[in-house]
């Protein structure tokens, strides 16, 4: 293949107060290739893409950007879009109340003299939806679609513009495996149509599946660029480049010491918050023992998050009934305060919406759920608070300029660690983790698994909800399979496998 560069970024540097996010980064992308960028949380991947797309305009970074042979100085996103560089950010930017078609043409409406030509818009939108393989009407409201479908709408939106270079920042982080597969296939198809792609992802297996070349970033510098066509690239090699050391195992070696039942739920029923007659959780019973890591597998929308949130102080749902036992005694967990007092903690999957106070310091986020611990008679002792936050910063290796940094400025993975810190600080006896490693790099994942394992070893119960099956299989002592609001199978570690889990889901749907 004639390897002609479409993009070359030369000696890019960019700093924020207290952080050198990018330090002389070089990146060359060839025409119609899929170029993956990998690196730890906070390595600078998103920042590099923001420099490229003009989010940080010319003058706020050092270095040169050459695109299609010309030196570019983008003032804003419009400039880069005009050149055909389209970015889909880590955080989706769709308007939930609007329809698919409205979202696709938002900002460049098909209008004549200010009047939108809806007919053409719908026809065009339908074409684009066909192209990305999304079976929805252009008039469907985006907020009602699942995240996987929303992601496809984002791509359709990108294709509606004249796209030469498509940048996807962790597009599959919150997708399940089938949706991820579909997305990756779409990328390969776009590539066949001469669209160049930059793909940022922490899922190395996906990266290796589709990427032509892989650039590794660490601490804001380029480590190397691997050519997948020339050499056989090994995952271990990438990981070593990313984290700067060898990682022997993906999961800690667990030696579970399982004790008596610490948490038990009987016949838990929950109705939907808006459609009050719709039963979301249909009589679920389960238990967790001391020292045990219990997984919940299931597809998106099977009710796992709803189950967890309704157990956690009725944070979700209506007309909730059922019994909860902690250490064999029935307890009332009808408010979140009660749930926390009884030793429950819930790490949400939606860290921006439900998890963090973005415009506040790391320190304040970490202590929020357990302020009494760092205060006396209602007065906060900022010194001990700072010590707590500093402790978590070190033990979880949160990458930040200081604990006084605002959470909004952290990279996605580091935000997740702050959220986890908050709940570890409540010293729970049952920790419910909802997709705890979403968007987290391999090294940090291992850190988090080690922490989870450590908590279990201390005799705590862990309930782990995850869409990543290897994670469930690697960590859990027992796995419940959930489908359509019910538990359809319970598999001990020795019997659990990807096939069995899928089989349980599929057969439950059929019957």
């Amino acid at each position, binding site marked *: 293949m004639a390897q002609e560069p479409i993009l070359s970024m030369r000696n890019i540097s960019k700093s924020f*107060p207290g952080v050198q996010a990018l330090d002389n980064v070089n990146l060359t992308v060839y025409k119609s290739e899929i170029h993956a960028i990998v690196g730890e949380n906070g390595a600078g991947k998103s920042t590099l893409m923001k420099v490229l797309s003009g989010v*940080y305009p010319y003058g*706020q970074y050092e270095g040169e950007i050459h695109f299609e042979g010309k030196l570019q100085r983008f003032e804003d996103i419009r400039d880069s879009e005009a050149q055909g560089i389209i970015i889909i950010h880590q955080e989706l930017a769709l308007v939930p109340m609007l329809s698919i078609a409205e979202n696709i043409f938002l900002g460049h409406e098909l209008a004549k003299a200010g009047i939108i030509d809806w007919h053409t818009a719908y026809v065009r939108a339908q074409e684009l939806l066909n192209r990305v393989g999304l079976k929805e009407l252009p008039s469907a409201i985006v907020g009602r679609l699942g995240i996987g479908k929303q992601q496809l709408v984002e791509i359709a939106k990108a294709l509606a513009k004249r796209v030469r270079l498509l940048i996807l920042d962790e597009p599959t982080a919150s997708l399940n495996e089938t949706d991820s597969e579909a997305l990756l296939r779409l990328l390969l198809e776009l590539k066949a149509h001469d669209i160049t792609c930059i793909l940022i992802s922490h899922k190395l297996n996906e990266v290796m599946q589709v990427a032509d070349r892989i650039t590794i970033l660490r601490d804001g510098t380029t480590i190397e660029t691997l050519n997948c066509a020339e050499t056989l690239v090994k995952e271990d090699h990438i990981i070593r480049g990313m984290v700067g050391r060898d990682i022997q195992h993906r999961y800690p070696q667990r030696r579970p010491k399982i004790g008596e039942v610490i948490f038990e739920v009987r016949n838990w029923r929950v109705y939907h918050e808006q459609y009050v007659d719709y039963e979301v959780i249909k009589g679920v019973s389960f238990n967790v023992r001391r020292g045990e890591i219990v997984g919940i597998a299931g597809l998106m929308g099977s009710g796992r998050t709803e189950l967890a949130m309704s157990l*956690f*102080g009725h*944070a979700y749902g209506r007309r909730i009934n059922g019994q909860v036992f902690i250490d064999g005694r029935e307890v009332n967990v009808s*408010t*979140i*305060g009660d*749930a*926390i007092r009884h030793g429950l903690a*819930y790490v*949400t999957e939606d860290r921006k*919406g*439900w*998890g*963090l*106070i*973005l*415009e*506040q310091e790391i320190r*304040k986020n970490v202590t*929020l*759920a357990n*302020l*009494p611990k760092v*205060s006396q008679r*209602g*007065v*906060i002792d*900022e*010194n001990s608070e*700072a010590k707590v936050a500093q402790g978590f910063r070190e033990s979880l290796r949160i990458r930040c300029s*200081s604990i*006084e940094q605002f959470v909004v400025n952290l990279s996605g993975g580091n935000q997740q660690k702050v959220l986890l810190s*908050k709940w570890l600080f409540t010293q729970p006896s049952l920790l419910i983790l909802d997709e705890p490693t979403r968007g987290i790099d391999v090294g940090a994942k291992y850190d988090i698994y080690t922490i989870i394992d450590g908590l279990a070893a201390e005799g705590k119960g862990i309930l782990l909800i995850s869409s990543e099956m290897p994670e469930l299989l690697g960590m859990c002592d027992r796995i419940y399979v959930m489908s359509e609001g019910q538990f359809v199978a319970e598999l001990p570690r020795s019997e659990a496998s990807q096939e069995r889990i899928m089989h349980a889901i599929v057969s439950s749907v059929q019957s």
Partner: protein
Amino acid sequence: MKISTLRNNLRDYGLLISLIVIIGFFQIVTNGILLQPLNLTNLILQNSYIVVMALGMLLVIVAGHIDLSVGAASGFIGGLAAILMVHYEWSVTLTIIVALLVGMLIGAIQGWFVAYARIPSFIVTLAGMLVFKGSALALLQGQSIGPFPLAFQSISTGFLPDPFGGKDIRVFSLIIGVVLAGIFVGIDWHQRFKAQMHGLNKEPTALFAVRNFLFAAIIIYLAWQLSTYKGLPTVLILMGVLILFYQFIAGRTVIGRRIYALGGNEKAARLSGIDTSRLIFLTFANMGLLAAVAGIIFAARLNTATPKAGNGFELDVIAACFIGGASASGGVGRVIGAVIGAFIMGVMNNGMSILGIGIDYQQVIKGLVLLAAVFFDVYNRNRSQFG
């Protein structure tokens, strides 16, 4: 690096510097009348009720809400106190207690609708504003009621007594001023020391020294000016105590922290076990209480209750918070900012009145200053995010 630290620090003190510049400006254009002892005393008295309400409003705004009813509520409370004292001849103490309780009740009722019935605060308090305005009119039957017993008047007209019996100068008041300046510098020094221990200090020594010297000098100067008149007004002391108290609540306590969390992200606050509804309820009840305090101060100052009392106060109070850097979307704002904001409005009111500028242009200018202040704040924030 150097420039950016300076810029950050400037942003922190920008508000205070604006206040000083505005004071300086009016001091010059009024030929020094602004800071004359008599006028300075007036300026403080005229502003006290706005400052007091701004303390409560700041918490409401930080919690992500707004209270439009405070002006009407304070007027209503003034009228109620007048009726109780003048018509029913209740004692001053009892009147004040009842007035404060009623104020708190007013806040609590509105708070209930906002917190538990989940009606937007804008609507609830807009309704409240109409209700209390009307109630004040009905209560006073369109008349002004006064005068009040001396004890009540002295809330606003009293001054700190001088046990040293100074003739031209109230020595005691001056001493308090000096001590206050000392405490201020001491606290700041202590905090700097602590920050240094944790390696968090960002302020250069020179800036620290200049700043403290300036502040101390200003406090002592103001105290000296006031001492040459009648000494420190009682209201100033009350105001000072309230400012310190709310500064402490907002900055150092669990409840304060939770209010900021609530305004920053209500869902996350709730999921962290915070009873957000109760917190909203309390914030409004507190606002009602402070509106009552303001109503009492205002009535005492005029020595009559009029049906028009409190008209439009809410605008000055809300403006003070926003000038002081509070964010309309909640979660951001500082007590001290709101206080400075209130004084910026107050100095402008007072200065423009001395200059004989009509009420028409006064409003135009105040409106523009509000817009400009918030504009620069937003502009700065965006820059520091991307710069």
